[in-house]
């Protein structure tokens, strides 16, 4: 199965072809093509309601596309649920982070991926130890491991969701992030952007949704713009500028 003709001769690690998604009559996405290459940070841009989150959810297993195909590492796969996506090496960090507010940090880090001993019994001691290691790696300080996640700051919560996606279980190949810097202060944003660059360094490809073009231009390699559920532009970050991107987002040409 050949990839469609494209300037880029690399093989995509994730490809979506003609993805269409309908919700009882409303067309959220229409025949969207997207390619993600190894070791790159791809920005997924668009105004509110353009379909960015919907597209991410189709790739993460949270939604099933109404039409279209998804290829992971060249192979056609149907991503039927979030568990399937994770097994393929696709991890997602959602806009609201999907954390468990009334549970503590280790429980959040190991949600869905517990460390198990024989007969399915949990290895709480190892999970506590690993949690400390992960928190240190992400440079987060918490008062106590038993602290509930609800009381953490926005940046700390984001770090926990990144910790769960990237540092627990098998290292993913692809990480999808929906508005990771939304609501974060300057220092926390910079920390998070650096973490995203670190992911690229570790060989992970990232799709990043963001409204903040400064952040996008700071870390992304390529950008893809959606408008009204359709793909309207695809650019190398180095070969474009903010004005052009905004024009594509708003449909002003």
């Amino acid at each position, binding site marked *: 199965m050949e990839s469609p003709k494209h300037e880029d001769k690399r093989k995509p690690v994730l490809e979506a072809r003609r993805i269409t998604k309908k919700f009882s009559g409303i067309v959220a996405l229409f025949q969207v093509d997207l390619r993600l290459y190894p070791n790159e940070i791809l920005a997924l841009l668009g105004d509110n309601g353009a379909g960015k989150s919907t597209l991410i959810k189709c790739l*993460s297993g*949270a939604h099933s596309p109404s039409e279209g195909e998804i290829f992971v590492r060249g192979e056609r796969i149907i991503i039927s*649920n*979030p*568990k399937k996506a*994770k097994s393929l090496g696709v991890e*997602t960090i*959602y806009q609201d982070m*999907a*954390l*468990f*507010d*009334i*549970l503590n940090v280790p*429980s959040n880090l190991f*949600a*869905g*991926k*517990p460390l*198990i001993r024989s*007969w*399915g*019994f*949990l290895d*709480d001691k190892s999970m506590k130890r690993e949690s400390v290691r992960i928190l240190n790696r992400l440079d987060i300080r918490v008062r106590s491991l038993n602290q509930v996640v609800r009381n953490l700051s926005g940046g700390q919560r984001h770090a926990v969701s990144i910790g*769960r996606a990237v540092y627990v279980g098998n290292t993913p190949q692809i990480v999808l992030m929906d508005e990771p810097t939304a609501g974060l202060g300057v220092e926390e944003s910079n920390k998070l952007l650096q973490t995203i660059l670190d992911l690229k360094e570790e060989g992970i490809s990232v799709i990043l949704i963001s409204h903040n073009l400064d952040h996008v231009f700071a870390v992304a390699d390529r950008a893809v713009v959606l408008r009204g559920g359709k793909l309207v532009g695809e650019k190398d970050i180095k070969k474009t500028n903010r004005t052009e991107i905004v024009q594509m987002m708003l449909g002003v040409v």
Partner: protein
Amino acid sequence: MIPQVSQRKADTKRFVASLIAQRWFALTLVILVFCMFLGLRYPAFATLANFRAVSISLATNGIVGVGMCLLLVSREIDLSVGSNLALGGAISGLLLANGMSVPVSIIGGIFTSAFIGFVNGLVVDRLHVNCLIATLGMMGVARGITVLIVGGGILIINKYFSWLGQGTFLSLQFPVWVMIMITILAGILLKKHHFFRQTYYKGANEEAAILAGINVSFLRIFMYAFTGLLCGIAGVLATARFGVATSTAGFGMELEVISAVVIGGSSLQGGEGNILGAFLGVVLMTLITDALVIARVSVYWHRIIIGTVLIAAVAFDSWMSRYRAMA
């Protein structure tokens, strides 16, 4: 003061505060105080005969309470437990009366209740009916079927079957032993097994649990079916104990069990609670009912008092949360 001494004082204060904040500690304290008070005021309380009298109620509430705890933690509820208990007992009585062997009758009764629980799970999960409504409806359906089967009552004449309800081992009746074993097993599983821990994730944030890869559907149906199974066990034990399958068995049990489990620390919002707390809650509720009987309080007042206790306990718990902040 010397710095070490004042530090020790602060540590002790924090330790005591955190201990009081622990639900099981507070409940055990209340239970002990209550027992002492009752024993002194009513000599009839501290007798083996009295314990025997409450033991079947303690056992059935305790067994069903385990299931209710699991459901509440996962942010579900089951109002049909009393009716399901009655149905399980009725089926076992029916099979026995029709010449089936004791093992077959037991399994038949338990399986029927488990199946009812399974249907509850399907209705809530696949038909997307609100769990309160679904189990409320099943409460009526199961009770109706029970009445159809049982009529005036089915007498149990089989001595082996009766032993299940009345036989004693080390001066505790068999149903109490069953309750103890189920409680210990469930307590270990909920605390230490990855499948049962998923109930906390589902209860805390169901959507996030799905996104984390947890099979919430399977978990939900399993917990309803498991609760049904426990109702069946309780129903068979109750029928064996009383020697008759009645249409009114377990009537009104839902209120008592839910109150007990909530007092024991499970929140209706989900994500909180444990088996030990639920068990202590059941013990407390059983004690209260027993106290009301011994003190010859009119039966009509029982429901009023039980309901008040529930409200008072939850209100007290909110007040207690200041201790949790200190810990």
